[in-house]
Every structure is written in C-alpha cells, then in structure tokens.
C-alpha cells in the first residue's frame, strides 16, 4: 500500500495531478448543484410572490 502511495518516488507529481483533477471535477459539480438549487429557490419565491399579488 505504501509502495502504491509512493508511486516509485513520483508521488507528489502523480497524486498532485490525480487529486487536483478529482478535486476540480467535484468542485465543478458542487458549484453546478449550488447554482441550480439557488435558482430554483429564486424561481419558486418569485412564483409565490406573483400568486400573492394575483390574489390581492
């Protein structure tokens, strides 16, 4: 296992690549999810406001 992690002495380079890649892809997905959620919340709020206005 340690041997695997050491990557024949190239650990910083290999893991530096793979982990950054994994990290950035995850960040991209999280950011997308966040954007989607806040947008949906906003649309719902506006719809509710409009419904209220129409009732009055």
């Amino acid at each position: 296992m340690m041997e695997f992690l050491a990557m024949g002495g190239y650990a910083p380079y290999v893991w530096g690549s793979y982990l950054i890649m994994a990290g950035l892809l995850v960040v991209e997905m999280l950011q997308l999810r966040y954007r989607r959620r806040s947008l949906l919340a906003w649309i719902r709020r506006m719809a509710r406001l409009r419904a209220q206005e129409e009732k009055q």
Partner: protein
Amino acid sequence: MSERGIQWFRFTAPANFYDLAGRLIPWFAALTIALFAVGLYLGLVVAPSDYQQGDSYRIIYIHVPTAWMGMFLYVLMAAYAAIGLIWRIKMADVMAKAIAPTGALFTFLALWTGALWGRPTWGVYWVWDARLTSMLILLFLYLGYMALHAAIDDRQRASNASAVLAMVGVVNVPIIYFSVQWWNTLHQGASITVTEAPTMATIMFVTLLIMVLAAWMYSVAVVLARARVELLERERNARWVQERLEGGTK
C-alpha cells in the same frame, strides 16, 4: 425562412430539451463513474511502470484525456455558437455557453498535469514550447469567451457577441496546431493516430482509451446539466418552467 425557423424551434423547444436532458443525465453519470472506476484501477494498479519514466508516466492517463477534451470542446463550443448566431437557435447558444466552463477546466487540467509531468521528465514545470504555449492560448481563448459573456448584460447580445469571438478563435486552432513546425518542441509528438497501429503497450492503450471515454461521458453529463440550469435561468418566466416546478419535478 421564418417557417423553417419555427420548425427548428419546435425541434429544439426548450421544454423538450429540458426533459430529455433530465432523463439522459443519470445514464451519462453512471457511465462516467463506471469508466473512471475501471480506468483508474487499470491505470494506477494494473498497468506496469514505464521502464524509462517509472511511475510518473501514469499521469498520461489523465493528461491526454484532459488535453483532448480541452481542444475538442472548444471546437464544439464554437460550432454551437455559430449555429446559434446564424440560425438564431436559442438552444445552441445555451449549449455553447454551457460548454465553456468545462472546456476551460479541462484545458487548465491539461496544463496542470502536463506541468507536473514535466518536472520529473524535463526537469522544469514549464517550457515555452509550441504545444504548451498553444494550450495556454487555448485557455485564454476560453477565458476571453467567458469574460465577454459575463461583461454583457443582455442575454441575446451576450450570446451573439461571444459567438463571434468563439468563431474567430477557432481560426486560431489550426494555426496553433501548425506552429509546432515553426518552433522546436520538447513535447511528445502524436503517438496515437487513426491510421497507424499504436506504438504503446496494449494495456496502456486500452486504459488510455477508457479514460478518454470517461472524460467524454463526464463532459456530456456536466454540460447537459449546466445547459438545463442555463435554460431555467433564461426562461424562468415561461409557462413550462412554472408547470415543471408545480409538478414538483427537479
């Protein structure tokens, strides 16, 4: 002219696209996970070390897919942008805008992984050779596209203007490609071509292929998801959005 426009519009109607994309995304996501799992296992565990480069060569399994995706997504983005500009198809604009961040991300990753690979093989993180420089320029093109989009408030105008930029930028791609010939380069030439048999070991080749496919599937899934958000944002007052929200769909 206008009648054809209407037909096109129906074909790419936002609501249909929204639903279809919503149904497709899980499949692509699943494929992405599966392919990455296999590819990573093969690449990090099964494939043997390189006799020259040792284990550092394993970076190839993410370097090459990201580099290819970075370049390919740019062309795709420009194509969508052109379609949106010329035929005034809103969906194409949405797709172009949705592709840009992912393309930029892959380009950045290609640069990053390349730099980390360069240190053990060339002794430096960075050299100003043709391939590396052109990749950097590609990143700038992406950033310019996104900056222009963000700088213009009006959606339609932003799409049209950045479409012009994307199309102009595409002219740069072949120029970048041929610059290798004017400029001595440290970087590896193409070793995978369609016409010739691969020069590398089969296991490496297969793994690389799987990783490339995984990156593809990931791109498709993320771009579709982003396009859906983009659509919602543009059409937030449209009836179909309201219907879908009331129906409790995501």
